[in-house]
């Protein structure tokens, strides 16, 4: 392992901004997609159930 300390790890040899900026945005994009996917599926089920109840009345 090439890291002497935690701050050494965060610094990324002076490229911390670029490396962590890349990983952070990638992580955020994936988390956002997962939230949207889960929300979308639950939302669709809820909406279709509501439509169905409305049709039955």
């Amino acid at each position, binding site marked *: 392992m090439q890291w002497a300390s935690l701050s050494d790890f965060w610094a990324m040899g002076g*490229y911390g901004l670029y490396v962590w900026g890349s990983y952070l945005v990638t992580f955020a994009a994936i988390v956002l*997609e997962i939230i949207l*996917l889960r929300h*979308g599926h639950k939302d669709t089920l809820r909406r*279709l159930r509501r439509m169905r109840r409305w049709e039955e009345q």
Partner: protein
Amino acid sequence: MAFNLYYYAAPATFYGLAGRLIPWFAWGSAVLAAIGLYIGFFVAPTDFQQGEAYRVIFIHVPAAWMGMFIYLVMAFWSAIGLAFKTRLSFMMARALAPTGAMFTFISLWTGALWGKPMWGTWWVWDARLTSTLILLFLYIGILALWAAIDDRNRGDKAGALLTLIGAVNVPIIYFSVQWWNTLHQGASIKPSGTSMDEIMLAGMLIMAAAAWFYAIAAALTRVRTIILERERHTDWVKRILEQ
């Protein structure tokens, strides 16, 4: 038992199959990403030319590959849908597009953050970068087209047509570094061999596998939602809604 393609091509059975497959792909992706990131940050050595900045490639290259590959899979399903009018094909194309757009965005974003310290600029209008930006615009254009057309069948066909026309851009992206004099470096992995350090390559390939698994899990989740929406008047969906 023989694998019956027509059986699983029916939305009703595919809905159940996808539901069972999603956890395997999702957890597989998480495990692969954990291994890939461990190798990428703790095993792979510092690059002798690029220092630590090269560690961006563990996401940049897999994201760029997925952006192109997902587009080709979309084009495949679009062609199948147009040729055979199979219902599930268009749904698969629609389910893949947002994830493909996301990976293309990530490849551009990470490329810019790598380019700034390495090339001295966030962006340059060279063939590789420009054709990748066109890929992102194609994804956005296709999504906008689907959103704009209320008639589902017309939307499916129009989107499929645009997807197929845009597919010509994918080989342009891939071969751009050979055809033109680009600032972007050439491929490190070729059929004739690789010019990368073995452990760096291993980390990158494991991250690529994680991206594959993730994309499959995301597309299957999205296609299930689309199937429910489109099949809502069928008995099997009504049974699910009553649960």
